[in-house]
């Protein structure tokens, strides 16, 4: 048992570290640090930079244009990326659709979409949730009816993250109403510019536009856009959710966030003394650091499993639950430290220090992280049933 890197891994670490040092623009770093929102253009520009360096589709194998890294390399890259203060990017195509196409897509689909994802030429969004379905994903109602060579799609999807930025959507639709719920679901790719699609904004609790409701009114989609077989959608969705969970835990980013907060506690003052001289805050910070350490080593253990060729199992649920709790408690800590400035809303630096301008926005927004990607309650149900055998 050891946590040492090999010589090659240390060299790789150095290489990545140097790249971020030389290529991460100051303004991107600053925005990320204070939690300010990014525009679509800003996001795309940064992702294209990553892409040119071969640092965008980091989890992909070489045969599909990825770097073919080991699990440890991926971990090193993500740690360095986060430690450098670089945002992870809104890459649903990379993390979610890519692996699905590699596993279930036709050769034509792979040839068409994977290179465009790799080069950050498409913006994919995800069409899973529906109003009324919530955590009960399998009850989805959006219909896809085959008409000649096309599916005709009717229904609505909700919580579509950055649907207003996306030109493509991977979507779960119902192709069969007469079988067991889960077996009637298919996975299909939809052009967001197609006729009959209406994207309406949902403003989040942080006052920003991240989410949308998407309406489909007789939208025609070529049959060849089906991924996998008809009725295979639920299998694909589950495959994908497991991949999503470990990412959502966001350990590396929480570590950066924490060290920023700790620095703030030393530099910001109250009553003439640094905030950290308040014993209560000092111990709270220590406690967060300890919790992060536990999260990091749990992450290591999952990583070691992945590296050993075992698929991330229900244990990834734990990581999701604990990781998102940590994100929330760190955002609470920032609000705490902001003091009076926590009340300020959508103001600028003339009114409050930049470090605290977005503190409550983030606190608000992160309430969602224990809801999306399978809520904490659903994760616990899964663990109870799958791991503990409780019925």
């Amino acid at each position: 048992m050891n946590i040492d890197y090999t010589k090659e891994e240390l060299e790789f670490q150095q290489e990545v570290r140097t790249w971020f040092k030389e290529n991460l623009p100051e303004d991107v770093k600053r925005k990320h640090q204070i939690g300010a929102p990014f525009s679509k253009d800003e996001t795309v520009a940064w992702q294209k930079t990553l892409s040119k360096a071969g640092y965008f589709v980091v989890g992909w194998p070489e045969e599909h244009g990825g770097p073919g890294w080991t699990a440890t390399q991926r971990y090193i890259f993500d740690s360095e990326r986060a430690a450098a203060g670089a945002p992870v990017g809104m890459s649903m195509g990379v993390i979610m659709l890519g692996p699905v196409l590699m596993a279930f897509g036709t050769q034509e689909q792979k040839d068409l979409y994977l290179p465009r994802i790799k080069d950050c030429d498409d913006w994919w969004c995800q069409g899973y949730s529906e109003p009324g379905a919530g955590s009960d994903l399998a009850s989805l109602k959006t219909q896809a009816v085959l008409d000649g060579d096309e599916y005709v799609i009717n229904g609505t999807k909700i919580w579509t993250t950055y649907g207003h930025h996306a030109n493509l959507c991977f979507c779960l639709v119902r192709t069969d109403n007469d079988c067991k719920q889960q077996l009637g679901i298919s996975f299909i790719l939809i052009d967001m510019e197609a006729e009959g699609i209406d994207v309406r904004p949902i403003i989040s609790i942080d006052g920003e536009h991240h989410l949308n409701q998407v309406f489909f009114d007789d939208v025609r989609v070529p049959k060849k856009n089906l991924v996998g077989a008809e009725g295979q959608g639920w299998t694909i969705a589950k495959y994908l959710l497991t991949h999503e969970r470990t990412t959502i835990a966001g350990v590396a980013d929480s570590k950066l966030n924490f060290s920023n907060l700790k620095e703030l506690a030393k530099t910001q003052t109250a009553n003439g003394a640094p905030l950290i001289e308040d014993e209560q805050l000092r111990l709270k910070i220590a406690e967060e650091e300890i919790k992060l350490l536990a999260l990091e080593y749990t992450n290591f253990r999952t990583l070691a499993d992945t590296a050993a060729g075992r698929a991330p199992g229900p244990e990834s649920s734990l990581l999701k639950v604990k990781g998102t709790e940590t994100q929330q408690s760190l955002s609470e800590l920032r609000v705490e430290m902001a003091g009076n400035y926590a009340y300020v809303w959508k103001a600028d630096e003339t009114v409050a220090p930049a470090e605290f301008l977005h503190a409550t926005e983030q606190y608000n927004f992160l309430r969602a992280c224990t809801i999306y990607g399978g809520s904490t309650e659903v994760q616990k149900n899964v663990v109870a049933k799958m791991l503990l055998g409780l019925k």
Partner: protein
Amino acid sequence: MDFSLSSEQKLIKDGVEKFVRNEYDFETRNKIIATEDGFDRALWKQFAELGWLGISFSEEDGGFGGGAIDTNIIMEAFGSGMVVEPYLATVVLGGNALALGGTPTQKEEVLGSVIAGETLLAVAYAETQSRFQLSDVATTAAKSGEQYSLNGEKVVVYGGAWADKVIVSARTSGDQMSEAGITLFLVDAKASGVSVTSYQSMDGARMANIAMKNVTVGADAIVGQLDQGYALLDQVVDSGISALCAEAIGEMNALFQKTLAFVKEREQFGVAIGSFQTIQHRLVDMFMAVESSRSMAIMNALKLSSTDVTERKKAVSAAKVYIGQNSRHCAQEAVQLHGGIGVTEELDIGHYFRRLTLFCGAFGSTNHHLKRFADLSD
């Protein structure tokens, strides 16, 4: 020992609750906060006509001789509808400052006008460096002749964007951190040298930073005693905290009631989610949080007028800590149990959440008041 309301108090309670129910629904509130002004002056007039603005003041000051319990009744009902009109800033903070420390002239001219709904007030004490410490005052009031010249900046002033007159803490002697040497001045918001930078607070209301550059006032602008403003300010802010605690109860209870109704209706996996035991126990925990917090708000109101200053301050800090912790719990649970819809602007849940988040930090965070309580208990 008697925990029941008088018949007058019951009448007020019914009245304010009815108003919120019938005339201040979520949609109405959204329209109000979207206006340039950010609050409804017509409604404010209506409050005055109903006597709500004068309820807690003595009859000789033009009020109805009520007290903290009456204030709490109004604030709790306002909380249930997240009323943004500046009752706290104008009536509780500003009004109490004048009622407790105002000269006869100030009372007659300003407090009377407040009760009539014609003047809006704010109390401005926080500064960039002061965080929650009332005694940390860098703003200066230099005397020259019979006049005082005010210089400095006050930040995150509740209702500061709307105030006609602002009661400002300034240093007339002593070090920046000392309790002695602070004086409160009644300043006209339109006076020469006053500049008000207003902005939204996270609950949709308006706050302001108020900068003063060579603002000249006479000795008749002093509220309370020269150099003795700290104790008065402390008492005024304590009354504000007490009122805000009652408001928080209204918000917590609204969240609890709405979440309870939601889990009874919302179906997942073919049944109402309220049938899941985990959800049931979490609702029970919310209910307990609301009811225990209510006990604390009552405790606080009963001790607010205590002549034993330590007892008053302990009561206020205890309530702030306890209701702070419990309201945070309720707010987070309400959002989590609502799921996706709970984190949108569209539904009122998120707005209650923000309002309670603001409450937790207002006039001193939970941690600040826990320490204050411990200091007073040693």
